């Protein structure tokens, strides 16, 4: 049976060792702050084929010209229509669509009358790199498309300024601040990096220093070792996140609009997934150096394919498939939804489920691979 005394002994030992290893300790606190400052700069891209919904208040030839122009520009992919502002808002919040374009009722008539009516584009600007390029190009795209339909008696309108105006509404991140977007995502990356690496290294250290031989010559059970070694690093994750959120608020004024509990549960699940991954890595390597290399190897896809660096919706299908299998992808969505879009527990169910599945798979493989012997 599992012994509480042995588990506590492993836990205590781990804390003592952590406290004495000053450099690692400093690194665990220093990395989040350093990364936060480094990543304050954004990497801008110009993605295309972004999911867009239409709120059709008018179906005349000019309206259709606007839509086909947007479609032909290849920036926007139309998924369908929404009936009202609530539905539009819901679609943006869930991440189903990045844009909603609203063509107001009587648009066509008012264009002909020369009223310069408003076209409203609502963009999910919590990811400004995704929205930026498309929004920038919109004016030109639409003017040109509409200009071609204005023939005959309306040809006069094609001259001069466009016969309507475009209003862009940036939902969730009104200023289009890149830092606002990148900071919640960065938390996912920092936790992926430090949690996985520290756990893998802490376990392999026992093998490398030879202390594993004495440890497993005692009656200690694998579960006591695993939980006893992992738990201290969960606390490290708490400290890191606290420091990070504080610094983010202070330096970049990043909001935290959503439910704290939703963040809390998502965060805990994500930390545990990462620790399990670190444990898995430790079963595959022999030295601390290898553990670090392998951890970095798993980190790279998390940076590139999770939607952190490049917008998820702009990636090709295979890359999205890989990204979906990464825990960072889901946690990144949780942090963006909760911090920037004010989401609550109900909005992150899909991500929580995905993290749960990933955790189950990793834990299963790790326990299969853990050796209670030296061979």
């Amino acid at each position: 049976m599992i012994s509480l005394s042995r588990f506590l002994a492993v836990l205590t030992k781990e804390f003592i060792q952590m406290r004495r290893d000053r450099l690692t300790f400093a690194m665990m606190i220093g990395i989040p702050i350093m990364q936060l400052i480094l990543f304050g700069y954004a990497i801008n891209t110009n993605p295309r084929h972004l999911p867009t919904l239409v709120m059709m208040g008018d179906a005349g030839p000019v309206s259709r010209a606007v839509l086909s122009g947007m479609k032909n520009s290849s920036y926007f992919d139309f998924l369908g229509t929404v009936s009202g502002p609530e539905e539009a808002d819901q679609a943006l919040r869930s991440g189903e669509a990045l844009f909603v374009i609203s063509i107001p009722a009587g648009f066509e008539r008012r264009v002909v009358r020369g009223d310069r009516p408003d076209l409203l584009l609502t963009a999910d600007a919590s990811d400004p790199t995704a929205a930026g390029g498309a929004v920038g190009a919109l004016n030109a795209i639409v003017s040109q498309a509409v200009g071609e339909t204005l023939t005959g008696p309306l040809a006069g309108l094609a001259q001069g300024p466009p016969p309507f105006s475009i209003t862009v509404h940036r939902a969730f991140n009104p200023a289009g601040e890149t830092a606002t977007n990148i900071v919640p995502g960065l938390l996912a990356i920092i936790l992926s990096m430090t949690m996985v690496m520290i756990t893998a290294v802490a376990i392999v250290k026992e093998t490398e220093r030879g202390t594993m031989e004495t440890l497993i010559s005692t009656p200690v059970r694998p579960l006591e070792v695993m939980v006893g070694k992992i738990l201290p690093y969960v606390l490290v994750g708490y400290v890191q996140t606290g420091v990070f959120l504080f610094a983010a608020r202070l330096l970049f004024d990043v909001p935290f609009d959503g439910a704290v509990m939703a963040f809390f549960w998502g965060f805990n699940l994500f930390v545990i997934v990462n620790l399990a991954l670190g444990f898995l890595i430790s079963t595959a390597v022999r030295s601390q150096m290898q553990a670090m290399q392998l951890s970095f190897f798993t980190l790279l896809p998390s940076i590139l394919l999770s939607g952190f660096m490049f917008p998820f919706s702009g990636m090709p299908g295979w890359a999205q498939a890989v990204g979906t299998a990464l825990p960072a992808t889901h946690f990144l969505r949780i942090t963006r939804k909760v911090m920037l879009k004010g989401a609550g527990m109900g909005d992150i169910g899909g991500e929580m489920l995905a993290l749960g599945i990933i955790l189950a798979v990793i834990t299963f493989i790790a326990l299969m691979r853990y050796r209670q012997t030296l061979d």
Partner: protein
Amino acid sequence: MTEQKPAVTEEKPIADEGHAQGAEPVIRVEGLTKSFGDKTVVDGFDMSVPRGAIYGFLGPNGSGKTTTIRMMCGLLTPNGGSGTCLGFDIVKQSRQIKERVGYMTQRFSLYEDLTIRENLDFMARMYRLDKRRQRVDAALEDLGLKDRSHQLAGQLSGGWKQRLALGAAMLHEPDLLLLDEPTAGVDPKARRDFWDEIHRLSDRGVTVLVSTHYMDEAVQCDYIAYIAYGKKLIDAPAAKIPEQVGLITYRVEGDHLVELSRELDGKPGVEQIARFGSALHISGMDETELEAAIAPYRNREGVTWQRQRAGLEEVFIHLMAQSFDNFAAPGAKPGESP
């Protein structure tokens, strides 16, 4: 359950006629085999260790001593063979074995970044010992580390690390001690104290399997098993080994021994020439050849010749050389003693 312990009449392995008493041996392994990749490191190893015995485990570097010990306490899974340790199956019941075995590793493997006391305390908790504080205090007292108990283990000198490791292995009062070169790097006084302790434990019924490269330690063991290239070459009571091997040794004392040794070197029948302090030991297996070889020098002035029983060291060097020949020559049958 058909097999009950008292009724079983056991065939004793031929090698150890020394302990024919009916008691169940503490360690009994048969045909133990271990390979790493395609390299067989331990090959068909048999051993039977009676309760309370001090069993010396000897062999050259890389012969498979550590590997064998690890298999006995469940740290390595054998590729072949079977056995019991303290009555438990070494493959299936390693958990029970670990509760009652004290294993001291060859390489220091306590936590260097924990203090001496923290290490002992950790081990005490691993075995869920009662009266932990008292036991740890007593161990510190015995080790003579009481005033340094708050020093990091990694800061101890090599010999002190060994002593601490031994103390940690004995903390839970195991029935069987597996000691892998426990005295490597330990000073003579501490080594003597250590062996006094081993004898005391053995008198109390603790069984000790100890690997060593020191001959003065080997002669203190009740039994010796000698292993080379993964095969056991001999396994007998320590005192009977030279006689069993049948090596003949002459001891020469006097002047100009260096020249003498050079002249005798390579002569048929002369297998080994070794220097022992101021004397020379000349050994060989074939009595007539050896006598013929040394005959011309026996009446030299200033040297005295004396035939004597071969020492353990000569015997082991002889066994090692022989097993190497067998190992090197393909097709030769290894491990066959003349």
